[in-house]
């Protein structure tokens, strides 16, 4: 590989790249230069557009406008394969490999060295794999089976693959998310070594300290837009956080002042080994409590256990002073708990069933007087809630799949509101729905709280949590790291707690 070159033409550059998915603009005017010998950090909140950048560089997506330059020349990767052939390698958070094949076979997948007669030259393959691992300074036996290797080792195999393919541009998409501190350190050594030998690295992480440890430069994205590119040395932690989140809370969040009553939902000492620990909180009548945190911090797991679809190891959940047994969603529903789950398509709806059958699914007994389900009652139920939520549909007997995301979410909300809950848990209620529907959902949550419902709102969108919640709980790696009042909570304090820096207060 060439010697490090800090001045010349970037190995890969994005210039003013724009990308939309249907009506949603995922990237707007994003520019980014990856230089030989440099580790470049890509920072931004969930949904800021980082993954889209990775996919464009990796050839999975093509930009709508703007340029991709490789060694200063225009390129257009029409497929991941083409990007690979031009020297781009993407290391994913959890690599996908062939577990039954040996390490060397995985490293050389698709480009095995051949002997005469197109037979695979195993000896050469193992020798070269050993060389690559030596070069990386990580001892992995090329002959061993891949199954059973740690995620850290699997990532090293991906990096070895990249080296074997002569990759010069290496993208690491949240590689440390599943690694221990020691493993992460080893990965940093390897990454540094690659850069020192002339590769250009793009490093994505939610952990700011890692960026400061490893990276030379950082580009911040927010809401799909380019914010700034700085040398890591020139930007302090506070400024970086502000760049990532700094925006005002808009009219999007029609939060009403409500009278907050007595505690309805009380969770105490909820624990599940390896997932979350010692989670205690309460939600009061008329109150919206926001549950913030990064993806993977255990928020959804906690509310699933509260609702009973998941098991828990210990801890208690009480609603109106009555304890809920663990693992029994039906008891939770009967006690007045409703969960609008994270995954609308897999957990919220039966897509192939009609709107009306979806709407009645959590309330079948109420539409079945005398044990016989009446379609007229189902239809009336769906119609009532459809009207209240201004659902747009052709016919109530149409499959739920035919509706837009926002309208699908309204069915899920209607289905749960039909159970007349006293506690409403909503997990990412506005993910992937259009802006109009989003405002409607926010207004609905406000109204429900004003009517005395206790609302627990999980969202990865900080503005949503800050705009809607009376109180914010922040989770980091399975624990609640901060509890902030509406006045205390701002982007920085929540972000600090969510990235494991403890409360900023």
């Amino acid at each position, binding site marked *: 590989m060439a010697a490090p070159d800090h001045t010349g033409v970037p190995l890969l550059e994005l210039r003013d790249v724009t990308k939309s998915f249907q009506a949603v603009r995922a990237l707007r005017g994003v520019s980014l230069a990856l230089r030989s010998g440099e580790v470049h950090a890509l920072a931004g909140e969930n949904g800021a557009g980082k*993954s889209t950048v990775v996919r464009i560089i990796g050839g999975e997506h093509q930009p709508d406008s703007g340029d991709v330059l490789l060694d200063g020349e225009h390129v257009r990767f029409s497929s991941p394969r083409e990007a690979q052939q031009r020297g781009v390698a993407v290391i994913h958070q959890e690599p996908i490999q062939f577990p039954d094949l040996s390490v060397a076979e995985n490293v050389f997948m698709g480009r095995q060295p051949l002997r005469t007669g197109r037979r695979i030259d195993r000896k050469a393959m193992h020798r070269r794999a050993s060389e690559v691992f030596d070069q990386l300074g990580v001892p992995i036996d090329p002959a061993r089976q891949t199954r059973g290797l740690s995620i850290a080792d699997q990532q090293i195999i991906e990096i070895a693959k990249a080296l074997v393919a002569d990759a010069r541009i290496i993208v690491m998409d949240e590689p440390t998310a599943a690694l221990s501190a020691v493993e992460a350190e080893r990965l940093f050594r390897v990454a540094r070594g690659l850069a020192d030998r002339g590769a250009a690295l793009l490093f994505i992480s939610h952990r700011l300290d890692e960026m400061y440890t490893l990276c030379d430069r950082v580009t911040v994205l927010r*809401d799909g837009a380019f914010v700034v590119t700085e040398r890591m040395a020139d930007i302090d932690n506070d400024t970086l956080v502000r760049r990532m989140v700094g*925006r*005002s809370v808009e009219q999007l969040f029609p939060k009403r002042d409500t009278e907050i009553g007595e505690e309805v939902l009380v969770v105490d000492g909820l624990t599940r080994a390896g997932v979350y620990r010692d989670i205690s909180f309460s939600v009061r009548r008329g109150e919206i409590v926001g549950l913030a945190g990064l993806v993977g911090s255990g928020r959804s797991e906690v509310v699933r256990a509260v609702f009973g*679809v998941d098991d828990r190891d210990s801890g208690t959940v009480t609603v109106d002073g009555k304890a809920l047994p663990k693992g029994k*969603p039906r008891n939770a529903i009967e006690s007045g708990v409703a969960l609008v789950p994270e995954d609308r398509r897999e957990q919220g709806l*039966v897509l192939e069933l009609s709107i009306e059958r979806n709407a009645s699914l959590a309330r079948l007994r109420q539409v079945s007087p005398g044990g016989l*389900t009446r379609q007229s009652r189902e239809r009336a139920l769906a119609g009532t809630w459809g009207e209240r939520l201004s659902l747009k549909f052709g016919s109530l007997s149409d499959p739920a799949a035919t509706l837009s995301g926002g309208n699908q979410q309204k069915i899920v909300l209607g289905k749960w509101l039909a159970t007349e809950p006293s506690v409403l848990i909503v997990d990412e209620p506005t993910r992937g729905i259009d*802006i109009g529907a989003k405002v409607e959902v926010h207004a609905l949550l406000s109204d429900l709280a004003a009517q005395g419902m206790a609302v627990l709102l999980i969202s990865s969108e900080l503005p*949503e949590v800050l705009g809607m919640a009376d109180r914010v709980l922040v989770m980091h790696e399975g624990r609640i790291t901060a509890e902030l009042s509406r006045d205390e909570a701002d982007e920085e304090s929540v972000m600090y707690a969510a990235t494991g820096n403890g409360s900023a207060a």
Partner: protein
Amino acid sequence: MREKLLRWESILLLLCILVFVWGSASTPGFAETDNVSFLLLDYTEVALLALALLPIILTGEIDLSVASVLGFCSALTGVLWDAGMSFETIVPLVLVAGAVLGSLNATLIVRFGLPALAVTIGTLGLYRGLAYVVLGDGAVTGFPDTYRPIATDTIPGTFLPYSTLVVLVLGILVAVVVHYTPIGRSLYAIGLGEQTARFSGIRVQRIKFVLYIVSGILCALASLVYTLRYNSARADNANGLELIAVAAVLLGGVSIFGGKGTVVGVASALLLMAGLRNVLFLNDVTNEIQNVINGLLLIISVLVPVVANLVRRRRSPAAVGIPEPPPQETLPDPVGATAASHATPEEDQR
């Protein structure tokens, strides 16, 4: 979706009528009362097994051990009768035995989470083997004349056999449960989206468990009818009948993947298959050829919806089926996108 199913059922009914018209026209003796009664009797057990299978397949599971449960229960009936037990005592015992075999299936599939296909292929062999262990190669005959007419005779003055009446009553019961109760709604929800069903408070595990027990009981009932009808309890009774029953359910428009199908469809398929078998039998078509025809019917029943869907998709790519999921993981939050569209980078760097 509903229109499509209705159409499939109309096609089946039409085919039924065709077979019966063709049979009456071409085959002397087909339309006679005695023959129609025989035709119905001949499919009693298949119908009972199909009723057991329908709800299970609706949830996306399968039970291939139905005919082996029948075989074991028949063998058990023989042994107990041979031992001098009264038939009144034997009936409840055999029904309990069916329930026990069903709950063994349920335990393996529901409690241990094993794939139903593998488990019931296993118990298909196991239960049939146990039948031989219990009874050996021989046959027990001489069942009491007090009860045999239930399985062989018609209701006086009609062509309708008693056992068909039993099937009809049970069929209506299953139809009501499947189409008009919360449990029935739950079956479809489980078949089309098990996770969502769980998140909706439907007790998926419990429902599946009960379905396998009910299946065992229905198979035990079928074994009693079978044993009385042939006046013979043998370990190999109804060998291979599970395939006919599965074929009837699938031909009836029930999706092997779960969540789609009606009792009317299955009933039409049963009638069609029974009629066809009878016509062919009267025309001296051998059993082997009949098997070929049954096999073809099964393949056609699975193929038709797929082909129909393909044809429709080609005609109007957008209108059919479930739209492709949008690339959600890659989408940024639209809230963010809009909220920040006002804030340009320059503003931010003030």
